[in-house]
């Protein structure tokens, strides 16, 4: 039963809550009628939710559903426009994160709250974290004298979790804590959460990964367009059959079939020229010569043909990002690179782009979006010098506005407000903006760096479709990803990168998952 519509849902919610109050200890946190409005956008809509001691509550919802907003309100980052929160039975209206911490609420933020220039130890000290067993376990593989900046993305995420867990809070809020973690690290985190459960401490777990939510949560709450739309709990320790469909339905609205039916779209179009199409990209013994990197690509050779998606899987920081930049002309290299027969060795990003190379950055906020500029401007970027956008160096305002409106509609960017600063978009919507502006240029080769990172399932599908459409149109795609399953799911051929070296490239259909994952960890 998917709960759609306003009233009944709240009634049912209240009922459930009352029932639970009877059987469980009283809620640690009780949220009633919380609404948050950002200049017209209802980010949280009349939310009612309780969290009991020892409970692990999963919070799911598509990009922009309002999960992080709720976390922000509970963390004291922002005040609700309306509504009441109680913690331990007392009214709670934090002025700052400090107030929330005092009440025993600690948060690992979606985008982290670390100081790049501090060492790991200094960072923990800053956050008043005691160095206990839990911390030592979580950080056991980390060189603690290194600065946060020098850590890999995954290590940073672990540290962010440790920073919050280390305060042994009554309530731990985790906003997408596993987006860049490896399986073993996720398991480590789950151990910590289980310990907390047995100690009677509550955890709120925001994620886009249904599997993880089902594995660890005692209850799953689904948000959609700011409101809580569904709430599920296992019966007798097991999730009932069809739970996934129900979750997806609640997350994305009426038609869960849209999520599974897309498999066809993401697979190669029958009759597309894959594998034997013309050579789009040819790379011979390329050595990255750009600014210092933890691992720079060395001796990379690669041929990519029209119509195929080639995935390069690797743990974050093994040199895939650098390789992506080399292949899009953003980092200099030695060796031979040619696109559609045009030699591009020694050329810059503009020549690469001129030859039809598109690039989807892996650092959306850092180097993708211009946060304080409008969605329109962000959609325009990279094309601003093209015919349709300008005449004699003067921007064609109307044409640009219309193009923006079209793309906002076509990609379902939300909120559909062309003038809104792009920095206020949710991650998924930012990615749509960046994808939209790459795809209108109809790239011959699209280099996509971790394009689904942080995206909800539907957005992930949307991205996958977009990549496949490039291939189906006769272009080629290089998909750099930290997620081996994604690599296997989306690609035609796959290779692994480890310590700057590229493994042999083979057809995905014949790939051995276990072997590839070993390669990712230790090389070959």
């Amino acid at each position: 039963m998917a709960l759609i519509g306003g009233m009944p849902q709240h009634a049912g919610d209240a009922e459930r809550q009352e029932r639970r109050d009877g059987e469980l200890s009283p809620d640690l946190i009780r949220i009633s009628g919380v609404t948050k409005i950002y200049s017209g956008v209802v980010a949280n809509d009349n939310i009612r939710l309780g969290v009991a001691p020892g409970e692990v509550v999963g919070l799911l919802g598509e990009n922009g559903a309002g999960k992080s907003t709720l976390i922000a309100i509970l963390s004291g980052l922002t005040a609700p426009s309306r509504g009441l929160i109680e913690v331990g039975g007392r009214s709670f209206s934090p002025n700052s994160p400090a107030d929330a911490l005092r009440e025993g609420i600690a948060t690992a933020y979606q985008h982290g709250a670390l100081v790049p220039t501090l060492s790991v130890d200094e960072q923990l000290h800053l956050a008043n974290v005691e160095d206990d067993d839990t911390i030592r376990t979580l950080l056991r593989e980390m060189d603690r004298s290194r600065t946060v900046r020098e850590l890999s993305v995954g290590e940073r995420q672990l540290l962010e979790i440790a920073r919050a867990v280390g305060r042994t809070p009554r309530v731990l809020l985790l906003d997408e804590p596993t987006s860049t973690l490896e399986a073993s690290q996720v398991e480590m985190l789950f151990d910590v959460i289980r310990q907390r459960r047995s100690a009677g401490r509550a955890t709120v777990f925001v994620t886009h990964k249904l599997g993880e939510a089902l594995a660890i949560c005692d209850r799953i709450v689904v948000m959609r367009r700011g409101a809580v739309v569904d709430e599920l709990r296992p019966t007798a320790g097991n999730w009932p059959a069809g739970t996934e469909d129900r979750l997806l339905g609640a997350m994305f609205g009426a038609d869960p079939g849209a999520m599974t039916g897309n498999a066809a779209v993401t697979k190669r179009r029958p009759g597309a020229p894959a594998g034997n199409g013309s050579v789009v990209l040819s790379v011979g013994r390329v050595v990255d010569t750009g600014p210092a990197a933890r691992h720079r690509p060395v001796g990379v050779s690669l041929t990519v043909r029209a119509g195929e998606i080639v995935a390069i899987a690797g743990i974050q920081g093994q040199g895939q990002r650098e390789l992506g930049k080399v292949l899009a002309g953003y980092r200099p290299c030695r060796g031979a690179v040619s696109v559609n027969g045009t030699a591009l060795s020694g050329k810059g990003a503009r020549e690469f782009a001129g030859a039809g190379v598109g690039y989807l950055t892996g650092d959306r906020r850092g180097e993708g979006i211009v946060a304080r500029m409008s969605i329109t401007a962000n959609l325009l970027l990279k094309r601003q010098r093209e015919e349709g956008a300008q005449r004699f160096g003067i921007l064609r305002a109307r044409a640009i506005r219309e193009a923006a409106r079209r793309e906002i509609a076509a990609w379902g960017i939300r909120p559909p407000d062309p003038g809104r600063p792009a920095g206020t978009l949710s991650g998924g919507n930012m990615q749509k903006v960046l994808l939209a502006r790459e795809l209108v240029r109809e790239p011959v080769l699209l280099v996509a760096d971790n394009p689904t990172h942080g995206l909800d399932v539907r957005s992930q599908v949307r991205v996958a479709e977009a990549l496949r459409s490039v291939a189906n149109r006769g272009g080629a795609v290089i998909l750099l990803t930290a997620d081996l399953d994604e690599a296997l799911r989306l690609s035609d051929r796959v290779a692994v990168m480890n310590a700057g070296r590229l493994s042999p490239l083979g057809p995905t259909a014949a790939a051995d998952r276990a072997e590839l994952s070993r390669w990712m960890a230790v090389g070959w």
Partner: protein
Amino acid sequence: MDLSAIAATVLASAVLASIPLMLAATGEAIGERAGVLNLGIEGTMLLAGLVAFRVALDTDSIVIGLLAGPLVGLVVGTLFGLLVTLARADQVLVGIGLTLAGTGLSGFLFREWYGDQQPLLDTGSGRPLASLADHVPVVGPALFDQHWVVYAAMIGVLLLGPVLTRTRAGLLVRATGEAPFAVDAAGISVWRVRLGATAMAGVLGGLAGAVLVVVELGFFRPGVTAGAGFIAIAVAMLGQHTPLRVAVASLVFGVLQGLGPGLQVAGAPVGSDFPRLLPYLGVVVALLLARHRVALPAALGRPYDRATARQDD
């Protein structure tokens, strides 16, 4: 002509002249470390210098005068800090305002208090190690023939190095300039850290003004700092916001500044305008050489606003 005597004097005088610069630049460095760019040190130095002068004259005590300077600096720095944190005022605007107001007020009060009189303080005494100066050629006076305040200031500034790197207060300051959101998220009030840092910067700026007026010159004149407050901003950056390096940079600046008159007196046909360029060109060259190490705190100049912080991280 005794070139070594000239060199010795140039150096000794450069050391003395570098002390106010060093103090002010260290203060600026601390403020910048916390993310606050203070263009108002010039004004702070002048106000504090004037008050220190008056207090020293009235009490007939250099020490009390020297204490008055930092006190004024504390008040001014706190006011500045409150404006740029709680009031979220623009740092550049308030800084320029402070310089204008401080320059104006100190000049105005000086005339109100002293009319066209120009009292002078005694700056000749208080040199505990002077007797050692003759035993060391050339650098003897620079090392030993100095006022005790010079030594005290140097030790104080050098001690601030470990304070920044080793103490929790230092940690908070450094973190706040880089990632205020992370500090906020750690449950620490960003504005309090910044207020503390600007107050400290004010204290050091005030002390700089007091030392300039009471120890180096022995008198106040309207505008007596002659731009030292701005040079301090450059020196703070050149010194990579570390007290030790700031001290070295100030010293080098002082020596380059003294080199001009040194060359003129030694009879080099350089005129007076070209040697005066030296310290400024020197700073540019030094920056060029040290370019890989000069990084500004990431949040420098940005008022911290929790509502937008998450987008900026």
